């Protein structure tokens, strides 16, 4: 690099242009390039921004970067987990700083180009107009983005980093320091008998639960929406109002109520079945029946949302389509197959995907209904544990935060990649960009 600099600098026929000089000056310090470009106000402003950034954040970043590399050096004094968090925040702050830094360099370069062409650089007023015009969408998005970084990106990074540490009960601050251990957690997970013993069955049930609960709750919602949408059905408002109620009751209340309704010995459901002469069903103690109960509850909880959504879509479908089909002599089922279903699916696909993903990680219903039980002999997972509740049991009970993080990452990668694949097939991505 140095050689080439000397070499090129000695070539008189390739003089340093204004853009390069401005950019390099801006690299040394934000605002220098702008000053060189004779944009005085902008240059001073940039300088101020840079110095206040450094002034405000220097100490924080200093400790944060050191912290994330070492995770502390003196036990009791250094809190590894706080240092890790500070390190992640530092990285985010630096990323933000770098964005502005590169914008500053690019700006210096571009304005340099303008000056090289012999034109006047834009003045304060023009700059202001560009910023408020071109930058307006960024201003709109900024507050939301800031919160999203704090609420979504930070926890994600935190978990990812944790998966590469030995953070558990015996390596826990303040008594002990946490250390980086590379991929050890992932290897140990695959080696541990605890995990191998029930993985397949848990995974199968997770997939079944996700597919069946989401598909049926959506199907049921659509079915009811269609029933009520029929012209000849009366009291439409009444049906819709009552059927949307499960959505209005807090889910955890409903689930806990179902727990008592399904009680083996004293629950009203078994009492009803007995009085019908069918005999009680071991809802809480037999894995098969517990699974059935959980699915039924999830249908109950989930169908109103789909019903509301589908009702709206149905109302938006032009009746011409159906009339045309009727003229062709289509049966109601044919109308459903070739008009309603494709249109509804097309319209709701992205929402449906998020619902599948939600149910894949639907910890609440599993945990609140029967804590993943009933237990299965010889298995670390209960009969209705899905992956996420199983992970929670195996790691949080024993304070293995590092394993918890590692498994979560694996699960998340699976769910996210399937979702991305599905999302890309929906129209949201195929749509032509309509904005000029």
């Amino acid at each position, binding site marked *: *690099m140095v050689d*080439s*600099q000397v070499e*090129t600098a000695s070539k008189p026929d*390739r003089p*340093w*242009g204004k*853009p*390069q000089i401005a*950019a*390099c000056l*801006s*690299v*040394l310090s934000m605002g220098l390039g702008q000053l060189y470009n004779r944009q005085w106000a902008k240059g001073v402003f940039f300088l101020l921004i840079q110095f206040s950034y450094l002034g405000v954040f220097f100490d924080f970043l*200093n*400790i944060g*970067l*050191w912290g994330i*590399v*070492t995770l502390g050096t*003196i036990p*009791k*004094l250094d*809190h590894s987990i*706080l240092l890790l968090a500070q390190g992640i925040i530092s990285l985010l702050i630096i990323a933000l700083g770098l964005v502005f*830094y590169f914008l500053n*360099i690019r700006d210096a*370069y571009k304005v340099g180009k303008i000056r090289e062409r012999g034109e006047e650089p834009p003045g304060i007023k023009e700059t202001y107009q560009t910023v408020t015009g071109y930058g307006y969408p960024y201003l709109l998005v900024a507050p939301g983005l800031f919160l999203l970084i704090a609420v979504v990106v930070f926890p994600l990074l935190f978990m990812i980093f944790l998966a590469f540490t030995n953070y*558990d*009960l*015996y390596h*826990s*601050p*303040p*008594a*002990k320091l946490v250390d980086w251990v590379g991929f050890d957690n992932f290897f*140990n997970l695959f080696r*541990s*008998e*605890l995990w191998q013993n029930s993985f397949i069955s848990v995974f199968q049930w997770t997939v079944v639960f996700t597919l069946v609960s989401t598909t049926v709750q959506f199907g049921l919602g659509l079915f009811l929406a269609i029933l009520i949408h029929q012209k000849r059905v009366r009291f439409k408002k009444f049906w819709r109002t009552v059927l949307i109620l499960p959505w209005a009751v807090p889910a955890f209340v409903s689930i806990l109520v179902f727990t008592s309704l399904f*009680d*083996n*010995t*004293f629950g009203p459901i078994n009492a009803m079945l007995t009085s019908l002469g069918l005999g009680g069903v071991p809802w*809480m*103690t037999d894995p098969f029946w517990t699974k059935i109960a959980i699915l039924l509850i999830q249908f109950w909880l989930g169908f109103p949302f789909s019903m509301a959504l589908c009702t709206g879509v149905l109302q938006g479908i032009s009746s011409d389509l159906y009339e045309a089909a009727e003229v062709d002599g289509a049966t109601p089922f044919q109308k459903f197959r070739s008009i309603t279903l494709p249109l509804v699916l097309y319209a709701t696909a992205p929402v449906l995907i998020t619902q599948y993903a939600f149910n894949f990680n639907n910890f609440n219903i599993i945990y609140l209904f029967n804590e993943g039980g*009933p*237990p299965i*002999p*010889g298995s*670390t997972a209960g009969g209705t544990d899905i992956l996420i509740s199983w992970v929670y*049991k*195996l790691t949080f*009970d*024993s*304070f*293995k935060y590092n394993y918890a993080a590692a498994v979560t990452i694996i699960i998340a990668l699976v769910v996210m990649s399937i979702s991305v694949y599905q999302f890309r097939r929906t129209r949201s991505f195929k749509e032509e960009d309509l904005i000029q």
Partner: protein
Amino acid sequence: MKWNKWLPMAMVLVLAVGVLAACGPQRDADQTQKEAGKEEKPKELVIWANKDSDELASTKKLAKRYQEKSGIKVKVVGQDMLKMQDKLNLDGPAGKGPDLVTWPHDRIGEAVITGLIQPIEVSQDVVDQYSESSIKALTYKGKLYGLPKVTESIALYYNKDLIKEPPKTWEELVEYAKENTEPSQKKYGLLFEGENFYYDYFLFRAYGGYIFKEENGKFNTQKVGLNNEGSKKAGIEIEELYKNKLIPKGIKADTVNGLFKEGKVAMVINGPWALSDYRGAKVNFGVAPLPKINGENAQAFIGVKGWYLSNFSKHKEAATELIQFMTSKESLKSRYQDTGDIPPHKDLIEDPVIKEDPAVKAFAEQAGYGNPMPNIPEMGQVWEPINNALAFIAQGKQKPEKALDDAVKLIEEKIKAQKQ
């Protein structure tokens, strides 16, 4: 030639490396060993007390008394007892922590390992005031981490309208239950949460079962005794209860309480937390210690809560004195009067206030025979497997021998994984 575009980038890199290399805090290596010399009398001590309203009020009252006595201000902050450790973990190092904390004794092990509490130094006379089991509960690896304020144990509630005197022995009790149980009429002789190890522990103990082998006052977590001869005998005993339909499968505390309050059950095994509920239902009931089993007093689990010394307390000595005041005979008596918490103080058990309440006396007596739940973190790995095994036994899914062997294998695996 694009070199002129890359030059600024290169400069950025050089700058970045320069900045990174100089990172890190500047501090003296011996900063940690600053504390030395005599401790000064503090102006203020802080207590994190349980948020429960009666308890908080009682603690505040005692704190005020101490303030009048010693001139040291005591600030009491209500906290969720089960979240105190998480909070102390961050607040302690930041210098915002309290001097005294409290939580159930079975979480002491975790707190010591993560460095949240420190041993206290008190004379043997002080220690001797309390029941041995409660002191054992607050001792971890041979060191005492606080002094006890409450002890809890299960005992036998009996419905006086159905049975005048509770049976003297477990064997008689089971006989009685066999004769007086009629599930079809929801009539039961004896009910308890039989699929919960917490309630079954005394059966395991009665025949010589144990959780971890005790060696020199410490638990050896390599030696789990939940599938030894005695434990298996207990397993068979439990299996019998369910086989003979004395206890319905899958029964939970809620149902036990409901049936007892309806007057359908002669006897239930439960803790002092059920007292107010039963009193409210106007059942004519009495409380007795668990009947003798195998010729000995039943050793049930006891739970203890004490005041512990935070590892971040800057006034170790003053805080230790405060602990002693808070758990003195007078303080615990006042606390009992405010909250009904049964004190593990030897003198108080003989005190008229307690002696005159037969229910409390029964609980206090039973607590005296009991074993504290192990306070080591490995205990956390025991509950689920053993409870599952009990459920399998109760439901007839596995024979006791197999169920307990499997459970112990799982417990050992889980403990291994925890330390991995």
